[in-house]
C-alpha cells in the first residue's frame, strides 16, 4: 500500500503559490473541500484561477477567497449566489469564464483520463462556442473543448483510507471524483479516515492512484443553501 496520508491541511497544501490554477469540488456548498479552502484563505496566496462549478456564497466556500481578493479568474457554470462576486465581476477585478456544467465535468474527466479534448454538443451556436472549433458528426454539431490543466485539485470525500481510496456521500459526490487525478497534485480531505483494508474494494468510488495526499478534515460546517422541508402530519 502506497501511503498518501498527511497529518494536516498544511502538509496537504504544501507547494501552493500565487497564480496557480486550482480545481475545487462541490456543487453549491455541498461537498466542498472546507478545510482546504480555509487553508488557501489563511495562506494569503493571490492571483488564483479556480475551476469550480460554483463560487460559494458571500461568507462561505469560495466566497471566502473572493472576499480576500485572492481569485483572479473563476471557471464555473453557475455563480449567482454571491454579492461580492457580482461586484468584482462587474468592476472587472475578477475574470469569469462561464461554461456548461457538463462541459466542466468532462474537461476535468479528460484531464484525469488523458484525453486532450472532447467534442460536446453543449454550447454549439452560442457565445460559449465563439472562437472554438466546431464540427459535424452524423448531422449534429459539436464544439471542441480542451482538457483542463491545473496545479492542484482539492476534493472532499466522505470516507477514505491512507492508500488514497475515496468514497463520497449522496450528491456531495458531484464534481469531486472527476477532479481526482485531473491536476498535478490531488488533495483529498475526508470526514472519516478509516484503516486501510476497511473499505470494500468493490465499493471504492476513486482508487488511491488518483490521489496524492489525503487527510482527515476538521469542523465541517456543511452549510445548507436552501433548506426545504415538509412537516410531519
Amino acid at each position, binding site marked *: 500500500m502506497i501511503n498518501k496520508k498527511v497529518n494536516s491541511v498544511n502538509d496537504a497544501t504544501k507547494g501552493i503559490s500565487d497564480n496557480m490554477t486550482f480545481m475545487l469540488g462541490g*456543487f*453549491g*456548498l*455541498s*461537498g466542498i473541500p472546507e478545510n482546504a479552502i480555509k487553508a488557501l484563505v489563511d495562506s494569503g496566496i493571490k492571483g488564483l484561477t479556480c475551476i469550480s*462549478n460554483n463560487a460559494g456564497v458571500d461568507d462561505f466556500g469560495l466566497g471566502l477567497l473572493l472576499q480576500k481578493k485572492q481569485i483572479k479568474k473563476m471557471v*464555473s*457554470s*453557475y*455563480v*449567482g449566489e454571491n454579492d461580492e462576486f*457580482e461586484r468584482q*465581476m*462587474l468592476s472587472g477585478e475578477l475574470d*469569469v469564464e*462561464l*461554461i*456548461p*456544467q*457538463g*462541459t*466542466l*465535468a*468532462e474537461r*476535468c*474527466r479528460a484531464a484525469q483520463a488523458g484525453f486532450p479534448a472532447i467534442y*460536446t*454538443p*453543449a*454550447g*454549439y*451556436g*452560442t*457565445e*460559449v462556442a465563439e472562437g472554438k472549433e466546431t464540427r459535424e458528426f452524423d448531422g449534429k454539431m459539436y464544439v471542441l473543448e480542451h482538457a483542463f490543466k491545473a496545479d492542484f485539485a482539492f476534493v472532499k470525500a*466522505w470516507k477514505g483510507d491512507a492508500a488514497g481510496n475515496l468514497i*463520497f*456521500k*449522496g*450528491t*456531495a*459526490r*458531484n*464534481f*469531486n*471524483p*472527476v477532479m481526482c487525478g485531473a491536476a498535478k497534485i490531488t488533495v483529498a480531505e475526508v470526514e472519516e479516515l478509516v484503516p486501510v483494508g476497511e473499505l470494500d474494494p468493490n465499493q471504492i*468510488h476513486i482508487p488511491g492512484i488518483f490521489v496524492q495526499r489525503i487527510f482527515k478534515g476538521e469542523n465541517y460546517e*456543511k*452549510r*445548507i*443553501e*436552501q*433548506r*426545504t*422541508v*415538509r*412537516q*410531519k402530519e
Partner: protein
Amino acid sequence: MLKVINEIFRVSEDKKQNIMLDKTGIAKRIAKEVQDGYYVNLGIGIPTLVANYVREDIEVEFQSENGVLGMGPFPFEGEEDADIINAGKQTITTLPGASFFDSAMSFSMIRGQHVDLTILGAMEVAENGDIANWKIPGKMVKGMGGAMDLVASAENIIVAMMHTNRAGASKLLKKCSLPLTGVGCVKKIVTNLAVIEVTDKGFKLLERAPGVSVDEIKKATEGNLIVEGEIPEMNI
C-alpha cells in the same frame, strides 16, 4: 409513490404563496406530456411545479443534474441532509430505487439522451426553436449551469414560460435577441396563453388557454404563428 411527491410539492407551494394561478396552470398542462416510464429533468421555476401534477397511475423518475436519479419529496423537518440536495440546492430525499453518481455520469445521462423529457424555463424562444435563458447582457450573469448541455442533448424539450415578459413584450420571437442557450432545440412551448409546437415553418398553435382567443395569442406572439383549423381549449 408519486402521491408522496405530489403532496409534498403542494405543501411547499402553498407555503410560498407566490405562485400565480397561471403558472400552476402551465405546470398542470405540461404534466400531461409526462408519460409512463419517463426519466425527467425539471428546471428551476415553473418546471419544478410539474412534479405536483403528474398522473399518479404512472411511474416517472426525476433526475437532477447534480447527481441523483429517483428524487423524492423534501425531507421532514430535522431530517435534512447537506449531502443530499437537488440542482436548485434544495434539500431533498430519494425514493426506493434511487441512485447517486458523479457529474460526469450525470451528464452522460443527459448528453447520451437517456433522459426522456427536459422541461425548462426560458426568457425567449425563436420560431426556429432557438432558446435564450441564461444571460441578459449588462445585467448580472449567473451562468448557464446545466441548461446548455440539456438543450443541446435532449430530443424532447418543453419550455414552460409566460407568453410575454413583465413589460408585455412577446417572448415568442422571430429571432432571439438575448444570447442563446441552444439552437433549434425547443419542440414545444406551454405558456399562460397557449400550447405551441415548434415546426419547420414556425410556431404552430395547438391549444388555447381557457377563455383566451386566437387573436389574443396572435397579438402576444411576435414570431410567425401558424393557425390551422379550429384551435381547441387546453384540457387541464
